[in-house]
């Protein structure tokens, strides 16, 4: 476990993984998009709008998965002080935030034709909204300190506290929805037919490999940033 902690060793693996991740992501998009947009059948109830699902559901999955990765690597960072673990969390945050935002927007684009309103206080959509605020909080806290390491530690702790809070938020919003069920519809009660599973999985795969590929690029940028900070200090210190 400890040899992963040394950045140069870790980057060797990351750079080796990069071409595979990028390639597989492009492949999944090339295979998945035509099915999602053309060959898969429209839903008997929702018609063509069901195609939005092939972006909405993978984005929702990625938003939550990336936050889980952030929480796990933050825990490793706080417990064993592996700076690489934190850099993974820090590099992942913007990607996860983008996916969560994409999920919210596509949720609105799906909600409008279905219920005639842009925003539906549906339990899952509202949880994603709270998750989006958690991402913003993580990124803002990480950059709020002169000493970057101080920001890293604060953001890592927030990711942990946030990960404990997320299931509670989901439960609360779920219950809160049933309390006012009479007034609005919710996304439940929509079954996916078998032909839709293939494009859905392909799109999830495409997003997943995309995340790994972009993460490697951001890891390189973060490691360079750390080296630049050190080099700058040393230059200044030579006086």
């Amino acid at each position, binding site marked *: 476990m400890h040899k992963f902690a040394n950045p140069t060793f870790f980057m060797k693996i990351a750079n080796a993984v990069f071409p595979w991740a990028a390639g597989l992501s492009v492949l999944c998009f090339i295979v998945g998009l035509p099915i999602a947009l053309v060959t898969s059948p429209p839903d008997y109830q929702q018609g063509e709008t069901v195609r939005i699902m092939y972006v909405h559901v993978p984005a929702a999955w990625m938003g939550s998965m990336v936050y889980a990765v952030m929480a796990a690597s933050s825990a490793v960072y*706080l417990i064993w002080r592996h700076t690489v673990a934190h850099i993974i969390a820090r590099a992942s945050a913007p990607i996860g935030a983008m996916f969560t935002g994409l999920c919210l927007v596509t949720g609105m684009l799906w909600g409008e034709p279905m219920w005639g309103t842009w925003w539906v206080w549906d339990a899952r959509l509202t949880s994603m909204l*709270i998750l989006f*605020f*958690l991402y*913003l*909080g993580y990124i*803002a*806290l990480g950059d*709020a*300190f*002169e000493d970057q390491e*101080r*920001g890293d*530690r*604060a953001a890592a*702790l*927030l990711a*942990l*506290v*946030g990960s*404990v*809070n997320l299931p*509670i*938020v989901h*439960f*609360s*919003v779920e*219950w*809160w929805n049933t*309390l006012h069920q009479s007034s609005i519809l919710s996304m439940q009660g929509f079954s996916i037919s078998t032909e839709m599973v293939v494009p859905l999985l392909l799109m999830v795969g495409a997003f997943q490999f995309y995340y790994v590929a972009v993460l490697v690029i951001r890891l390189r940028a973060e490691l360079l940033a750390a080296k630049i900070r050190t080099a700058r200090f040393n230059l200044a210190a030579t006086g």
Partner: protein
Amino acid sequence: MRSFAAILRRDLMLAVRNQGEMLMVVGFFAIAATLFAFGVGPEANVQSRMSSGVVWTMALLAALLSLERMFALDFEDGTLDQLMLSGAEPAAVVLAKTLAHWLTTGVALLIAAPAVALSFQLPSQAYGALMLSLLLGTPTLSLLGAVGAALVLGSRRGGVLLSLLLLPLYSPVLIFGAAAVEGAILGIATTTPYAVLGGLLILALTLCPWAGAVALRHAVE
């Protein structure tokens, strides 16, 4: 334990010495509710329909307002360094500061809540539920707030950042706090909200002192 009592006594003495702090929180609570009324209009039945939500949300925002100063003063004048060195468990320091914050602001909000609820036409049968839900909810707000306040110590952005961090953590407390009052208005069973509020309090009591202590240790590093 001895340092817990000492910190608590000193913080309460400081709070008594500058009364302004508590008055400011209650003042914000009342003004925010009044502004809400201006926005919504004076109609009684409209206001009473959302009275539980408004009172609870304003109380939450008022509590949020006073959190930043929980550790900031001690951080700036070196007291926090000394506290972390005093042989006291950092978690005890967090708990003592949180209890002091709750006793000064949480209780002040509890006292002011009926008046604000009255101005918002809260139906008479719901006042008991309002007080009980606030009694159960505000300590959790202080506990979660302590973690947030410790996290932003020494940061460039402070206030706004603190509310961005805490609002997602506060949302469950608000949902079940307002629901308890709502249930009392409608006369339906309110066991679930109280059970969850109690559960959240116990969870916060176990996790927040530890998380706050870790954040404080990072702050003094």
